[in-house]
């Protein structure tokens, strides 16, 4: 298998794809790429560094709200608000990391604390005035590229593609850099990592800050695409699960895991949706895709701990 060639072919296909299909499928493709992107932000912390989070949506929502508030309340251009949203996401990532890792939280305790942070942010967004509470925030439609709004969905698709490519490049860079090797060492064994001179605390804080910034970028993208956010969309647990799921299904800690997982889950989603509309017995199982997700996750954890990517990877120890 020639990997660089395969990647180029995949990229070529991804570029040509929206030109060949109707808008409905362009949107689905955009969702695949977007979910792969935020999934990758989870994967940096949860997959590479082993810091499993159940509340990654806290960064997503922080990004979405930061850029939307700057835009709606203070009249900022959304393109300029985007980097500020990323800084806000990074700051929240840094804060959660410092608080939890200083307290020595690991594994499931860390996962639960992230979930708690996401819930606190959701409740805050519901109750404070500058987010307009449960009413949510509407971004005025003004479809000009200068305004980060596009008439033709193809441009949204290409933007999602660009984000996805950048996130894959970041992950790929991790697999061949000192920072990445240290994250993996931290995941595999913190004591051994410490003995070999790794400042475990600092590495964990770094990766969560980076992950927070990336995920927040996804939040702004989402807000600009749908022009509406509310506390449940921006800080709801669904998005957290989605990010975790695409990484786990595709292969946590692998460069292409989130993309493969996102492709697989979107395919399942579409198939079950059309099945539910065709087969009367399935009509009341709503949504059917969640049932299939659940079964898949159980199968993956039990049979394919390295995710779908694990099937492709040659196992060196069998050589």
């Amino acid at each position, binding site marked *: 298998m020639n990997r660089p060639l395969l990647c180029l072919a995949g990229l070529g296909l991804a570029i040509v794809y929206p030109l060949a299909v109707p808008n409905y499928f362009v949107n689905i493709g955009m969702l695949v790429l977007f979910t792969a992107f935020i999934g990758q932000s989870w994967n940096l912390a949860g997959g590479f560094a082993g810091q499993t989070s159940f509340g990654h949506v806290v960064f997503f929502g922080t990004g979405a709200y930061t850029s939307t508030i700057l835009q709606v309340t203070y009249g900022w251009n959304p393109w300029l608000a985007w980097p500020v949203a990323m800084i806000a996401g990074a700051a929240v990532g840094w804060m959660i990391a410092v608080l939890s890792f200083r307290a020595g939280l690991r594994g499931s305790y860390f996962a639960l604390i992230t979930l708690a942070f996401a819930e606190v942010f959701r409740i805050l967004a519901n109750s404070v005035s500058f987010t307009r509470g449960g009413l949510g925030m509407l971004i005025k439609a003004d479809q000009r590229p200068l305004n980060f709004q596009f008439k033709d969905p193809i441009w949204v698709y290409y933007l999602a593609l660009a984000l996805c490519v950048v996130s894959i490049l970041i992950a790929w860079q991790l697999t*061949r*850099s*000192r920072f990445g*090797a*240290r994250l*993996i*060492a931290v995941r*595999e*064994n913190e*004591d*051994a*990592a*410490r*003995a*070999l*001179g*790794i*400042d*475990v605390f600092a590495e964990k804080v770094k990766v969560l800050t980076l992950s927070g910034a990336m995920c927040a970028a996804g939040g702004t993208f989402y807000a600009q695409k749908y022009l509406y956010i509310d506390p449940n969309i921006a800080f709801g647990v669904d998005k957290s699960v989605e990010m975790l799921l695409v990484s786990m299904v595709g292969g946590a800690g692998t460069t292409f895991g989130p993309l493969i997982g996102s492709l697989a889950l979107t395919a399942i989603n579409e198939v079950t949706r059309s099945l539910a509309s065709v087969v009367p017995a399935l009509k009341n199982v709503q949504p059917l895709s969640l049932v299939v997700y659940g079964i898949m996750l159980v199968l993956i954890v039990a049979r394919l701990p390295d995710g779908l990517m694990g099937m492709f990877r040659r196992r*060196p*120890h069998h*050589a």
Partner: protein
Amino acid sequence: MLEVRDLSKSFGGLKAVDHATFDVRQGEIVGLIGPNGAGKTTLFAAIAGFHKPEAGRVTFEGRDITGLAPHKICGAGMVRTFQITQPFAKISVRENIMVGAYFHTADWRVAAREAEAVARAVGMEGQLDQRGADLTVAGRKRLELARALATHPRLLLLDEVMAGLNPTEILDIVEVIKRIRETGITILLIEHVMQAVTSLAGRVYVLNQGRMIAEGTPAAIAEDPQVIEAYLGHGAAGALRA
């Protein structure tokens, strides 16, 4: 090079290490032996920053390193290995060793080259692509050694690298350790089994119930009645002589 003075560490009411004092000089191999539960590993952990000692001082190359974080102690030039091996299980031997090598280089090509060189030095060149989890006990012990070496330490703290190995494997690793010393690295070696130490160490300290009870050449230590009693029980020295 390493000076440990009156180091104490207790867990609850138990004094695991009780005013331990010893020295390691540049270029030697020093053995630290003692029966099971003597506090050897705790003493190691307290020196290397994994436990905070409640009293005493650790000086390395003239610098006070008492209670520093492990990664800072590694930075000072002193690295420990683990008795219960701690491989990075899901990555290859090469990547395991590279983690150590990344301590002094940020370039993955340099780290990869270094990993191969270190693997050769400890006799793991044939296992570079195996996963950490798939190694035998002997392989894991060597990997501990290799990763630590890759950080370029000046003092290596080896915690029972021979425990669990068969006699042939012990002979092999003794050769490896001798070669490491020849490259100018000083070694402090914990062993439960005395014979393993006698072939390597110039000087031996004996720890029993958290206290240093003897110091000397391996031959002198083997004759020491206090040491014999620590290993074989009270009155054993007299019984042996009779």
